[in-house]
């Protein structure tokens, strides 16, 4: 088995209307239930908007803290799932489902290693 990070990329700016979001959220919830039932979920998370992010850098003991996300852009990571499946084809299959639910592009990236609390 191998672990993959599925990253959901969202456009910045005002969130879409509740009428638009409601059916999407239902589909995402259904997808979340599926990975839970399939027993492949390692971790899932959704993020607050990128303007809530803070970047910290240290340089020879000096700390520089700046407001905003690290990478400039019109899209940012909005949420992610780590799944444990046999191979890339399997990971891509689940990513297709997530893209279909969110209507957003999903980046699939293999984990080189990882550990969990507990």
């Amino acid at each position, binding site marked *: 088995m*191998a672990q993959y990070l599925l990253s959901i990329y969202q456009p910045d700016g005002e969130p879409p209307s509740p009428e638009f979001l409601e059916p999407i959220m239902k589909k995402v919830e259904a997808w979340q239930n599926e990975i839970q039932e399939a027993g492949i979920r390692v971790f899932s998370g959704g993020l607050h908007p990128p303007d809530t992010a803070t970047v910290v850098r240290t340089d020879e003991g000096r700390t520089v803290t700046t407001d905003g996300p690290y990478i400039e852009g019109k899209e940012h990571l909005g949420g992610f799932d780590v799944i444990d499946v*046999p*191979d*890339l*084809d399997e990971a*891509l299959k689940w990513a297709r489902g997530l893209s279909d639910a969110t209507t957003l592009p999903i980046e*699939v*990236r*293999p984990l*080189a290693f990882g550990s969990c609390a507990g």
Partner: protein
Amino acid sequence: MTGPSTADIGRVFREEYGRAVAVLTRVLGDIDLAEDAVQDAFSTAVERWPGEGVPPSPAGWIITTARRRAIDRARREAARPVKHAEADLLHPVSGVAFDPEAVDSPGIPDDRLRLIFTCCHPALAPRSRVALTLRLLGGLTTAQIARVFLVPEATMAQRISRAKRKIRDARIPFRIPSPDEFPERLDAVRSVLYLVYTEGHTTSTGPELADTDLCAEAVRLARLLDGLVPGEPETTGLLALMLLGESRRPARTGRGGELVLLADQDRSRWDRALIDEGQALVRHTLRWNRPGPYQIQAAIAAVHAEAPAFEDTDWAQIVALYDLLMAADPTPVVALHRAVALAEVEGPAVALGIVDRLDLEPYHVFHAVRADLLARLGRITEACETYATATARTANTIERAHLLRRRDELRGSLR
């Protein structure tokens, strides 16, 4: 009895390299190890076969020897601590018994098919798919592939090793896709083989018009795919298209190596055996009644092959086939080729009207077609300028010479 020559061993290498790498990849679970082992085995063959003769089953011998070498190497390297982690990366398919005789057994999914699907996986960049396919299934060296793509060998080596690393780290599986993804994945394989063929047919650059080895490799792989996954009309269509293209090769260049266009080719130099096989395949695909772009292109080539002379060509039939192709694959390049056929039915003015609306500025064939149509309409000065534009957009020496010759002929006619 005399032993095999280096050429004989070279032929076995070409025919069996892909199969050996495919079997060893399944057994060892790692492409690099499989390639090293197969190359070791061929080195041994070069030493031994001239004295001992070629074994009854060369493929079986290569695979058995390669497997033994791989095991020796793994043992040696596992003894060293640094290499231990590397050995852990191996994940051989468990429960698969190794039987060198099974390589020729019917009914067992061919390992080469798994390897084709791995090499042409959509998660790899298209350029890498072509390179990996030529390398792992065709047995071409990195230097040869680099020459095909006109990049430095180091660049190609990096591209191939990056693709192999992605296969390993992202775990691109070594397996035949599931039925629901099969159509899409098979399309990806066919487009790789088509790219290999078109690059061989008219090389992007260089002193030769065509790369005959590359064409032969594309035909060999298309034949293999058509045999491994039978009943796929588009694969058969692709094979037919390649064979019909190959049939014209002897007539595509003249005595001095210059390009000869379809209209001016000496059709007695066309290869009848290839035409017969290509046409039989086209007729075979018609029975399925599931047309697609490769089958339609093959049908167009078959109509050309039927005409004893250029003047005898059934242009109405060809335009009708291009209409079908436009419906299946509506690209500007298809529209351009359709216009060339339409010029023979409705005249150059109608064709030029269509061509002028196409957005194909960087494509040299677009300008060559325009130049020809302009010349036929008597717009000689514009035609000369357009031939010059076309020349500037191709790096194939033979094509450049041809375009410049056409321009000079036109200029001569002005005087």
